[in-house]
């Protein structure tokens, strides 16, 4: 039948463009996402390395590249305030929307999830291709704002109104966001249909690997939380382009001049709509990494995960609860304190399932025969570091302590412990873990260990001082911290953070080298290098077009390790039990 041939074009010879550029194969698209999002992470990180110079040595010319920057951004190599703000806004935007989400969902989800459920591809392969081809132009559009008159957005990644409506550069940010959001929406629909409809026979929901559960919950969040931001972005775009006043209050005076606008809008409305997306977004950043870590811990400890049902239940309740905690970002925004109480309570409640998941992971280690492979080391590092990130969030969720800590470096420390030492560490773990699946070769262990120790130590070196600075009362977002007298005592900590940030970059070089060298020259990996039980290891590495020669049949849950009486200490999901 014709329909099947157009979906499974492997029967005829594919051209280079069909195979590597406009591919409909989830594996190629997954790797496209992987490489692209790693590049965006590196770009976002580079912006931050520039900002770290300004924070450590405010007013000093940037060494090496300072002279290359245009004189409007950095006269004589000294960064201007506008340039600092642009870097800050773009760092946040790139890292969150173009780096971590596409890496965690677009790359890992795309490549691994269909394999783990025994599917030949995603439910809608062409839609999948379209997601990528919206994401990349959206990302390039975002970057292109650097060379446009007025420069890129400079109102923070949160784009608070009315500042964002007045500041230059915001229009391109909004247009790019609409494109990126559309890409995510298409992806979310595709993931949900695939996960619900394309499971191999016998793979009931209670046998799904945790990673698949994480992707499904994440997709629901993307599906339902992104449209409000899309609407909010359209309204902000209307404010900028059509002269409406959705977020502009009456009687706004800017630089002594009354603003020419009808007024009647509400600046707080933007914050509500933005955080209605952006809080679920935090769980989008965190759930897939949790899934990755769970997979690695199960195979790295050689025992079943502790509390599979608890973990699944916790993930689902995290997903639901994440929609009703958003205003804990806004305790000091001027919204009603009564509302603050409500969000305080929901925030305390949502910490329960997070702690439950982490506890299950830690309990899974008990009595295991742990294999200290590189992915397992990253997964183990995730546990305490993500724990620090989570626990430091509690004082921010309590209104009384938040009054003091709000908008200080403490917040930056907390958030980055969650998404850098949490998510990014887990994404590195996943990269080392599934690399043999992608390329049929292993990554180098020694280089991996150098990367691991360097990365973990540097990340802590960057973010831990921020807790101290925050508790000493240092405000975030300031272009020149030394301008305020009370920041002088903690200024040396900025130098510590900055030096570790630059060192962190150096420690990524062995990773980049390792990645590309192993791609072509790495040690050939056996079919199931980690001796894992889930379905992605039941097909060749890399899997051929269509993945499985024969649709696998699933007989048991995902983590049957060290089953007494079985010949090996792993019992794959698709292996029939001998009577």
């Amino acid at each position, binding site marked *: *039948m014709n*329909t*099947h041939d157009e*979906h*499974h074009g492997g029967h005829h010879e594919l051209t280079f463009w069909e195979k590597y550029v406009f591919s409909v194969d989830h594996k190629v698209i997954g790797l496209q996402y992987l490489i692209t999002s790693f590049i965006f992470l590196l770009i976002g990180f580079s912006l931050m390395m520039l900002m770290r110079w300004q924070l450590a040595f405010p007013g000093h010319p940037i060494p090496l590249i300072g002279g290359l920057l245009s004189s409007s951004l950095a006269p004589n190599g000294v960064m201007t305030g506008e340039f600092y703000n642009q870097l800050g806004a773009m760092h946040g935007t790139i890292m969150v929307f173009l780096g971590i989400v596409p890496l965690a969902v677009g790359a890992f989800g795309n490549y691994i999830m269909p394999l783990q459920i025994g*599917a*030949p591809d995603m*439910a*809608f392969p062409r839609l999948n291709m379209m997601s990528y081809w919206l994401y990349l132009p959206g990302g390039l559009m975002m970057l292109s704002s650097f060379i446009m008159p007025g420069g890129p957005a400079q109102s923070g990644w949160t784009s608070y109104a009315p500042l964002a409506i007045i500041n230059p550069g915001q229009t391109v940010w909004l247009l790019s966001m609409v494109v990126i959001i559309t890409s995510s*929406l298409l992806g*979310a*629909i*595709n993931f*949900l*249909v695939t996960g*619900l*409809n*394309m*499971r*191999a026979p016998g*793979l009931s929901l209670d046998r799904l690997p945790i990673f698949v559960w994480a992707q499904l919950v994440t997709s629901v969040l993307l*599906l*339902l*939380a*992104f*449209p*409000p931001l*899309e*609407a*909010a972005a*359209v*309204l902000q775009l*209307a404010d900028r382009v*059509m*002269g*409406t*006043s*959705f977020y502009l209050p009456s009687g706004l005076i800017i630089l002594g001049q009354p603003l020419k*606008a*009808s*007024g*009647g*809008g*509400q600046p707080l*409305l933007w914050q*509500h*709509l933005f955080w*209605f997306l952006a809080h679920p977004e935090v769980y989008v950043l965190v759930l897939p990494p949790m899934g990755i870590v769970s997979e690695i811990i199960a195979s790295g400890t050689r025992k079943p995960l502790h509390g599979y049902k608890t973990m699944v239940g916790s993930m689902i309740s995290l997903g639901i609860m994440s929609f009703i905690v958003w205003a804990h970002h806004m305790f000091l925004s001027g919204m009603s304190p009564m509302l603050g109480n409500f969000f305080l309570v929901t925030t305390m409640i949502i910490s329960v399932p997070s702690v439950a998941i982490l506890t299950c992971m830690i309990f899974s280690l008990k009595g295991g025969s742990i294999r200290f492979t590189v992915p397992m080391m990253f997964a183990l590092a995730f546990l305490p570091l993500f724990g620090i990130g989570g626990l430091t969030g509690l004082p921010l969720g309590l209104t009384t302590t938040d009054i003091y800590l709000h908008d200080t470096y403490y917040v930056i420390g907390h958030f980055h412990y969650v998404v850098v030492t949490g998510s990014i560490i887990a994404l590195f773990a996943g990269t080392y873990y599934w690399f043999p699946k992608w390329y049929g070769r292993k990554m180098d262990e020694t280089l991996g260990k150098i990367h691991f120790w360097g990365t973990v130590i540097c990340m802590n070196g960057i973010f831990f001082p921020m807790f101290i600075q925050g508790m000493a009362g240092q405000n975030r977002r300031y272009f020149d911290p030394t301008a305020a007298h009370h920041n002088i005592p903690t200024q040396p900590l900025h130098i510590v953070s900055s030096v570790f940030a630059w060192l962190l970059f150096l420690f990524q070089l062995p990773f980049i080298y390792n990645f590309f060298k192993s791609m072509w020259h790495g040690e050939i990996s056996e079919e199931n290098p980690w001796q894992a039980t889930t379905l992605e290891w039941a097909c060749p590495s890399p899997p051929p077009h*269509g*993945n*499985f*020669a*024969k*649709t696998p049949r699933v007989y048991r849950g995902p983590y049957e390790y060290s089953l007494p009486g079985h010949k090996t200490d792993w019992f794959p999901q698709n292996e029939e039990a001998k009577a």
Partner: protein
Amino acid sequence: MSTAVAAHPDAPTSGVTNAKLGIWLFLASEVMLFGTLFTTYLVLRMGAASWPRGWDVLNVPMGMVNTFVLITSSVTILLAYVKASEKNKSGFQLYMGLTILLSFAFLVIKGFEYGAHFAHGEFPSTSIFNAVYFTMTGLHGFHVICGIIVNSGLLYLSGEDFEHPLFAGRVEGAGLYWHFVDIVWIFLFPALYLL
């Protein structure tokens, strides 16, 4: 020729076809999109010192006619689906053609309304009410245009693809979307014109 690879997607685990599940999920996200706009409207209106009565500033009869136009188009697209499932090609083409005509009628009437507003110097920037009115109806109009594109595409494809086993399913998907566009208007009309 049914290989193992090809057979798999035809047997969805959930019992609902991929396309139908996909459309429903897409509509869920659309509900969130328009839900946000309605919430925005509510918040802005409750916070405003004064808010015009819809019937004082908008043309209620025209809005009313448009409501009936859209409701009728929902009926015709349903009939188009029925004809498609019955493999009645000319019946399908008649009702799908009617649906598209009615959609254009909606846009033309809406265009007259917009034109009258512009002629009176009422633009989105004039007042917060206008901002809400033009943005919400504009986004709805954009959805109508998307619907026209999808429905015209199906009408065009029916020339060759009508016997395709998935064709009726595609019409059903387009129909679900079209009903959604219709329902949004059924909420928009009273919210903007009658409150």
